[in-house]
């Protein structure tokens, strides 16, 4: 059975009288330990998918499963716990707490988990042992995103979700981040789902899911993902 399973997930936003289906029957699976890339143009509904998967938004209909858990059936409270214990989130704009140092940002997440990783160790793993005591504002974009990844990882989540993790970064930095995420999956064995509009990223993915107009257009397994360093865009 798939680790993550979307079954006919629909999400309809009501803008006044108008119904906008952001997800219109999305169905896909991601296996444990895979690095999956969900790709699609702006407005395709991929962020909606991510939000629902990340427990930040509820489904209008359909089912989302993480292993045996029916996430789509969770209450508000249960969803919070789900985010707290099961999901690690990496944002496009890092969303670090500006008033906390790198280490503290990681610890902020770690302190609420049941079985967190050591914050400093995690930061070392993302290569920031020398910037631990710096505030986000003192860090470069790439460094901030590393902190964000470390923060997500330190929670020791079942699932790492990344929303355009390289969107605000230059190519070189972006590649480093992608490499980090790839390592997280390959070496750490964690399930990583990256959402992006950038097709270049599909090369490094174990699984690529194309979304357009709220529907999965294509889902395929990449038998030979390249290393992040080798991606060109």
């Amino acid at each position: 059975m798939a680790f993550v399973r979307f079954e006919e997930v629909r999400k309809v936003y009501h803008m006044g009288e108008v119904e906008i289906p952001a997800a219109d029957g999305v169905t896909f699976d991601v296996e444990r330990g895979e690095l999956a890339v969900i790709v699609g143009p702006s407005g395709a509904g991929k962020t909606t998918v991510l939000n629902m998967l990340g427990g930040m938004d509820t489904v209008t209909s359909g089912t989302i499963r993480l292993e045996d858990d029916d996430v789509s059936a969770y209450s508000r409270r249960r969803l919070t716990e789900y985010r707290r214990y099961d999901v690690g989130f990496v944002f496009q704009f890092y969303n670090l707490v500006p008033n906390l140092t790198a280490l503290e940002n990681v610890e902020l997440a770690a302190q609420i988990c049941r079985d967190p990783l050591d914050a400093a160790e995690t930061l070392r793993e993302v290569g920031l042992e020398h910037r631990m005591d710096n505030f986000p504002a003192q860090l470069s974009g790439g460094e901030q995103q590393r902190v964000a990844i470390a923060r997500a990882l330190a929670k020791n989540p079942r699932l790492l979700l990344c929303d355009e993790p390289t969107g605000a970064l230059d190519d070189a930095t972006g590649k480093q981040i992608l490499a980090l995420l790839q390592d997280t999956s390959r070496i750490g064995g964690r399930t990583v789902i990256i959402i992006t509009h950038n097709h270049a990223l599909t090369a490094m993915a174990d699984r690529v899911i194309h979304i357009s107009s709220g529907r999965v257009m294509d889902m395929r397994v990449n038998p030979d993902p390249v290393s992040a360093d080798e991606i060109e865009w």
Partner: protein
Amino acid sequence: MHFAFNKEIVRSITRSWTRFLAIFAIVALGAGFYAGLRMCAPDMRITVDHYLDETGFFDVRLVSTLGFTESDVAAVRDVAGVEAVGTEIVADATATVADRRTTVRVHSLDTTAAAGSEVTAGGGVASDDPTYLNRPILMDGRWPERSGECVIDESKLYANSAQIGEQVVLTAGVRPLEDTFGRTDFEIVGIVHSSYYLSFTRGLTTLNDGNIDRFIYIPEEDFAHPETYTDLHVLVRGVAGASPFDAAYDDIVDPVKGSLEDLGPVRAAARLAEVRAEAQATLDEGHREYADARAKADAEFAEVEAELADAAVKIAAAEEELADGQAEYDRGVRELAAERSALAVRRAEAQAQIDAGRAQIASQQAQLDQLAAALPLLQAQVAAARTAVDDLRAAYDAALAEEALGHTPSPSSAELAVSLGDAEAQLTTAQAEYAEQFAAYDAGVAGIAAGLAQLDAKQLELDQGVRQAELEFASAQRSLAAARRALADGREELEDGRRELAEGRATFERERADAEAELADALAQLDDARVEIDELEMPEWFVLGRDTNLGYASIAGDADRIEAISVVFPFIFFLVAALVALTTMTRMVEEERTLIGTYKALGYGKGVITSKYLVYAGIASVAGALGGILIGSQVLPKTVWRAYTTMYTAPPALTPIDVPLALTAGVASVSITLVATLWAAGATLRESPATLMLPRAPKPGKRIALERVRPVWSRMSFSHKVTARNIFRYKKRLFMTVIGIAGCTALLLTGFGLKNSISDVLAKQYGPIYHYDTIIGFDEGALDLASGEGSLELALGDRDDFTGHLVIHNDGVRLTNAEDPAPGDTNGIDGALTGGKNAQTTMMEGYLSVPRDAERLSGFISLRERVGGAPVPLTDEGVVLTEKIADRLGLSVGDTIRVEQVGLTGTVDHEETRTFTVAGVTEQYVSHFVYMTPTLHEDAYGEVPAYNQVLAVSGLAGDGDDDERDQLSQRLLALDGVTTVQFTDDITSSFDDMLESLDSVVYILILSAAILAFIVLYNLTNINVTERQREIATIKVLGFYDAEVNAYIYRETALLALLGCALGLVLGIGLEAFVIITAEIDVVMFGREIHTMSYVYSAALTLVFALVVNVAMVPRLRRVDMVESLKSVE
């Protein structure tokens, strides 16, 4: 301008009501509070000014030591600038008002003018009579119409103690009552207010305890000298428009005062001449009268003298007569005695003769008796002879017959014839002898009878003579007796006469002495009068301004105090308003960063874009200022006035909007907001459109000082660290919140503290300081100090009513620091505390208090230090001052205080001024005292003080048993010498009303504080939530529970609230102290202590406000959408 742009401005308002409201509300609060508070003093002044104008309150009051006449009035009326002159007679008296002894000030009332006056809508009194000034306002009843009627003040202190229909009886005056008043009993027919008596304290007098309790108005004609006025009241022309509190008023009035001061000596000289002429006339009349009296007396003396002399002469004559009478009587007595003895001799002689005659007759009788005795013999002889004859005859005849018959009797006839012849011869001889003898006897008998008759006649004659003489003697004797009685009577009469004369003389002497003494007195009086006339001083005119009126001066002072407070208070609000505007507008500008960029890119100029925010903030702040000023300028002055009018009798506050102040408030608050807006917009606008299109770099985190304290920092959780760093990251918000909350707490603490301070006045005064509960006032002479056995003291000592009592002397004095120059003495006229000649010298009015037993004082009044409570001993070394005297006069232990006695008409009696060393300062709240021992008093004044009060502990206080107290009061008042009985409970209850009215001030403070807290906290939280939406969303995504999210944000608010609260408590102490000291009225010292519970309440209320805001903001936090806020940075 640009239609679309304008539309956008309007929408930006309608789409962000909370932001708009935040600015609106804080500006409203700031401007309203500022305007309202600043307008309190002007409104007070306007209200008073209006009230004074409406009641014809004087601009200048004239008092002369010799009074005024119509010619003075005319002269004053002729002074340039004088509009009208009102006349009045004022005198103080002790009176019984509804059975209660009261010190009253009696004013004359023009009954015609009063009857013609009308109460105006504004609470004043209108009159057609321009000379009817200081018009009292009839509250109830009617005006006096005839002699013997009066109107009395409505006194809150003596509430309900005098009703219409009750009596006011004057019992004593400063001078003899008849010199001042035409009558002494009055019926109350009406109740009045008077602008002349704005404050409850009616002023000072020399009578009784020195305080005037009430005032009454009586018809002018009920004064003894209705033609001589004691006071003239002057209205100055052209002051109608000027507030008496402005310099403009003084500019108008001062020249008139100057003219009147110049007129003073002129009129004074005239008045002196007049009085002197009058007095001289009176004196001359007196001399004439004296001369008349002298002459009359002398004439009377002479007359009486003559009468007495006459009487003496008469008595002498009577004496002589009496002596003559006596002599005559004596002679009479002697003569009578002589005659008596003569008569006795004569009578004896006559008697002897008679007796001799009788003896002769007796012998003749004896002879006769012998003769008589012989007669029968003779008779018998005759008879025998006759018988013999007869027998012989018979024998003879028989013999003859026999013879004839012949017989020859033996004797024969012849023989018988011879015997017969013999017998016959014998018979004849016997018969002859008998006849002779008989004749002799008869002759003898006849002779005796004649002799006897003669004797008897003689005897009769003698007896008759004697009887006659006796009768004569008796009559003489009676005459003599009568003469003697007459003499005795005469003598008695003489004695009476003599006594009468002596008495008459004594009486005369006495009368003459009296008369002489009287005359001498009269002469002495005349001489005195002459001396007095010679010594008549130039009368002095006191030209007094309004500031010498006690009520006016004290309201003016209160207005100044409020003004002082009103400058400080709104500062908090303005500061907070500026900070709120700054943070709010900063936030707005930041939120619209991209929009600004867009406008810039579209080619809008900096000015236009800025104008959007200026217009936005402008509309909010102008609306807020308008609303705030409209509300504040009405509510605050009214509330403050209501609180103050518990001490004044005055109409409700007039609250016109003071345009300059309103403009100041409005302009200040609007410009503060606009400046803050410019500031906020300025930085952003300087950026280029390109950078503006990018999200603003988040404000960098910074290490804070606390992090260097590793042991603390490392133990803090992240949320706490974030909180700590956030607090210091947004300094504007920190200041806004801390200052706002501090302001809130400080206001609350000020409000509660104010209540504490004022309630402490009584709680402390009648708790730990005063232990007595009854004050008994008595006449100074009522206590016999020499023996200590005064009836009063005995009566009190004997009573079970009291567990203890202390005799004390209390007298009103004026106090100054001896190092300051002595203040002038004209100020005292009404007891108004104005500076007089040395206006810079601070003066206090207080009481000189001398307990008879200084050692026992502590049982009735605790002398102790306020801080620490150490007892302050009262010794002969110096005086103990109550705290406020020391504070106000700048005196401490070892310094010297000047004590001046207030004399007649409130002026200072310089002869009685003394200085004393300050030996201690004691806690005191109501009234001010200088305590000293009797020894010290005697040393200083040369006499023991005249004790006039008894402090007593009845144990009846506090249990609220009015009946029992009334009874006790009745019993005490029945004692000789007891004049007043006062229970401290009564004093405290009248104070409670004042406290209640203060509640409104406290409520206003609490309300303002709450609004302040809400605005600030709502704004803070609102900004925190909107500005940190991403952060909140992030931690939500990280899986923070709702409670954790709330805590994450609120911890900051709470901490700031706590910080502000703590700061506010500190600020509040200062603010409260400032308000208390500034607002404090002279007669009391407010408590200096804020109760612990007030700190608790203030802090708790602040935190409750914070909690309420936070709870209200919870839904907003929940609504922060993770999805939306993560998408991108706008």
